[in-house]
């Protein structure tokens, strides 16, 4: 048996990692894993860098930022497996929600309408609004900025963006220190349950199919331990398959609800897994298509184009200057090659996409894609403004946006 210590943050999207341990998928691959709960993404990264952890539940943008050395020491870090798609939401104080409703020209569930409504509210406000995200290098940050930017709101000029740990967001909302936040679950649903906030939009409404959490590891460690990496990917693959099956959701919710994992009420987690969310105090639960997904549609495959989209956002929001070298580093953070190798001896043969990059956001409907193993349908995966991202033309993509 090989021993691995893997860090996780108490979020619903740690499901695949926790199931790999709890349901014995890791043990089946000859791995003895110890899960270590972390309280900060910064601590997770530091412990990974120093070898206290061999792998980590990471925000998809973290391996890219670490490999590029943005805001931190440069440590080549890779993501050979995507652990979850979507799953975040933009949640605002009830006061801001009411003001947005007042200004809305239609249904706030449409990102264009809610964006324009927010713009009206900002124009009418004497004080800038403050929004919190969980980490500078996160889909949360980029999603929020994307939505604001599309409405002509400059995220660096027209609002204040701060980072606040999710455990503090409900309190900060109540105290009026922030007006809204973007986080994964259970934090949005918890804030709604406490009666202090309303969910405006979910990630799936902004980008219908975007990577959220990955398994991250240091590149040098992965190169030195290829068999262990393959075993871990196989274990996660089986766990992801298990997590995506609705028949297992009750058991999964019970596992995750335990205090040493997430420590919130089981029904709340079950609702998140089912994609039925209470968006505000008054509302009946709303069913959101693909609110969170763990396995279907080749979700676990680490597309290099996903890595590049994250990089494009780092450039767009001036976290790094665009260069051919940087783009190259970013492209190589997500590792479909390692994923493919790990899949080689799984039976039945897993579905493997033929390509390793794709145009992100190009599919309005489920569309057959070239694959081995079994037929693969990809999509819908569009962004709400219908702009596709061509990984071969990062500059062209970036010049198509008017804000920033």
């Amino acid at each position: 048996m090989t021993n691995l210590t893997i860090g996780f943050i108490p979020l619903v999207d740690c499901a695949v990692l926790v199931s790999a341990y709890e349901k014995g998928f890791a043990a089946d691959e000859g791995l003895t894993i110890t899960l270590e709960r972390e309280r900060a993404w910064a601590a997770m990264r530091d412990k990974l860098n120093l070898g206290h952890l061999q792998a980590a539940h990471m925000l998809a943008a973290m391996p890219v930022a670490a490999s590029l050395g943005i805001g931190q020491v440069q440590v080549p870090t890779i993501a050979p497996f995507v652990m979850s798609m979507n799953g975040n939401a933009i949640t605002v104080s009830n006061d801001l929600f009411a003001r947005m409703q007042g200004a809305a020209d239609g249904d706030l569930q449409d990102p264009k309408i809610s964006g324009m409504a927010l713009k009206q509210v900002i124009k009418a406000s004497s004080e800038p609004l403050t929004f919190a995200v969980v980490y500078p290098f996160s889909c949360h940050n980029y999603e929020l900025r994307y939505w604001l930017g599309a409405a002509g709101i400059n995220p660096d000029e027209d609002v204040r963006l701060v980072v606040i740990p999710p455990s503090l967001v409900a309190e900060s909302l109540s105290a009026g220190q922030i007006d809204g936040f973007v986080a994964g679950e259970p934090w949005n649903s918890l804030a709604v349950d406490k009666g202090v906030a309303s969910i405006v939009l979910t990630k799936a409404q902004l980008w219908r199919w975007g990577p959220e959490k990955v398994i991250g590891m240091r590149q040098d460690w992965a190169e030195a331990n290829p068999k262990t990496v393959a075993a871990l990917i196989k274990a996660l693959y089986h766990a992801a398959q298990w997590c995506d099956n609705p028949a297992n959701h009750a058991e999964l919710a019970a596992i995750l609800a335990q205090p040493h994992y997430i420590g919130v009420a089981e029904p709340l987690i079950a609702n998140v897994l089912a994609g039925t969310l209470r968006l505000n105090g008054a509302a009946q639960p709303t069913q959101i298509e693909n609110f969170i997904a763990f396995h279907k549609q080749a979700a676990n495959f680490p597309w290099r184009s996903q890595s590049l989209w994250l990089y494009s956002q780092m450039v767009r929001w001036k976290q790094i200057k665009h260069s051919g070298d940087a783009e190259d580093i970013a492209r190589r953070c997500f590792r479909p090659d390692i994923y493919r190798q790990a899949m080689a001896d799984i039976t039945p043969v897993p579905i493997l996409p033929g390509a390793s990059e794709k145009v992100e956001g190009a599919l309005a409907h489920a569309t057959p894609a070239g694959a081995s193993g079994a037929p693969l349908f990809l999509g819908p995966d569009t962004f709400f403004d219908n702009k596709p991202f061509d990984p071969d033309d990062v500059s062209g993509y970036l010049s198509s946006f008017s804000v920033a």
Partner: protein
Amino acid sequence: MPQRTERIVVIDENPARAAVLDEGLREAGYTDVTLIDDMHGLLRRLAAIDPDVILIDLENPSRDTLEQMFQVSKTVRRPVAMFVDQSDSAMIQAAVDASVSAYIVDGLRKERIKPLMDMTISRFNAFARLEEELHSVRSELADRKVIDRAKGILMQQKSLSESDAYQLMRRSAMNNKKKLVDIAASIVTAAELLNGDGP
């Protein structure tokens, strides 16, 4: 003692550890030290203080807040970087082992950082040892209480002297290869059950 002019902020949710570090800093000649234990409005406070060095528990969730300062230079007037000196990996390892992280204004000279880091690491370690000792003292006290109760039960029910009661428990512990406190605990539990005033 050299007067040290660095403006230091210590962020810690544990006021006792913050106090231990504060004392160490002052003894070492750092006079400009601010302790923050309230994580709300952290960035605004830091912007007002404009520190040269921020010392924080490695595990503190508000580190993610601090890392935003790398990205938003408007928040603080001077660029702040996490303390990472790749030339001194032993110190980084020691810092992580002690669960300390530091954010330092870019350009602060290395020879001024090292003594500060060394002192902080040693204080964090001393605090961890202190907590461990306190924990073991507490459990020792609890153990002694259980043993005293068991002794009392034996003295009363078997009409033994105090020292005979103690010897009986010790022999039983040795014969059963158990700890004295475990034997005592089972005597107390048994007595509670038999007298009907148990849990």
